[in-house]
């Protein structure tokens, strides 16, 4: 699974958690905060994505990335790791 596929999963989960964004264009340079997700919703997107890609790691290892593109790259690296 490449970074682009993971990014697509993240985008899909953002739209599942915030249905208002179903028509909004979401790109790798967006942050979830900018898209209006609150802290619990951001955490839920991360959790749904971990489940979808079958990655079981402590959430503390996912602190840092600002954009969803960065997050996709980090998840890809952890998964390959």
């Amino acid at each position, binding site marked *: 699974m490449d970074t682009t596929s993971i990014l697509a999963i993240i985008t899909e989960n953002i739209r*599942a*958690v*915030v*249905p*208002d964004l179903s028509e909004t264009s979401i790109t790798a340079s967006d942050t979830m905060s900018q898209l209006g997700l609150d802290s*619990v919703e951001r*955490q*839920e997107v991360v*959790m*749904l994505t*971990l*489940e979808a890609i079958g990655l*079981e790691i402590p959430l503390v290892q996912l602190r840092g990335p600002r954009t969803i593109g960065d997050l996709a790259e980090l998840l890809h690296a952890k998964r390959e790791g």
Partner: protein
Amino acid sequence: MPSAKAESAPVISGIGVATAFGYGVSTFRQALRQPGNRFGVMQRPGRHASDATFPGAELPDPPAGILSARIARTTGLTGHVAVAVLQEAWRDANLDRVAPEKIGLVIGGSNTQAREHLLIQQSYAAKLHFLSPQYGHRFFDSDLCGLCTSVFPIRGFAYTLGGASASGLLAVQHAADAVRSGRVEACIALGALQDLSYFECQALRSLGAMGSVCRPFDQGRDGFVFGECSSALVLSRSGPGYGRVLGAAHIADGNRGPEPSLQGEVRAIRMALADAGIAAEEIDYVNPHGTGSPLGDDTEVAALREAGLTHARINATKSIIGHGLSAAGAVELVAVLLQMTGGFLHPTRNLENPIAPDLHWANGESFQARTALKLSFGFGGINTALVAGALEA
């Protein structure tokens, strides 16, 4: 001539209600006037198991469009129904005219979302690591306070309180106190829908509390039958409205389990009457706890005799809507008010051979009650009573 005390008693200025008959005051009023049968085998996911089903009455789907899709997806049945009844009561009482800081919310009920929790536990049993972070705040009963105050401009205070099956009536008492004390101008009492899972149903059956057919005060009764319901009542300093809370009482009788206490019930009744400043013989109508429990109904009849209330008309609302547990007292108080303002008394369904044939069982007749006594009792020795009075003509 109403006393000065009665004139300062809090007014119930708005109502919202949901029962198995549907949503809204007019639907409930019609159900009380001409009660049909809404009981059947309960179908909700998590409320039956492969080897156990339970009788009861379940609500139709909540009205759509009150919550955004974003909030709706993280809201369970209890929350969806709470905002539906709250919206109706809010509009009825025109609460938009009250400053948000002067509006309070008391939600009666504890462990109200057990079925939602069971479903979440089942979903994540094999993948605990991926448990939704939403559950971290949703498992609290007070998440209902967060939901309601995020959707409606309530900024005075909000809390839940537990009194088992007396929770709803207890919430009304607290809301009335908050208005009477001047803490807020208006306070909403909400009887939360008790969303039982099959675990609670099975345990209540094992306890001997849950029966097969809902027939309060009939010789053939064999326990209560569950009925989903919820209501919101707005307590205000002045009218217009449906009636007044003239007085109330809440006492502990020292039982831990389900046993009723004759002394506890009589004491609560007498204290509520004293708080209202009226005599037992002035009560026109009694809406009892009346669950259909063999011992509970016998004890309650004995309490009514001892308190000098056998002259009053009586009916049992649970015979129509079932036992709403946490919500019961709040929904049944709505039934009291709709009957007082509508000038009628509903029949008691399935009452064929009353255990106390000398009591004045209502049977759908026209009747103008000016004063009513509402009783609610909860496991754990909780006894509550409330005196409602009609608004002055």
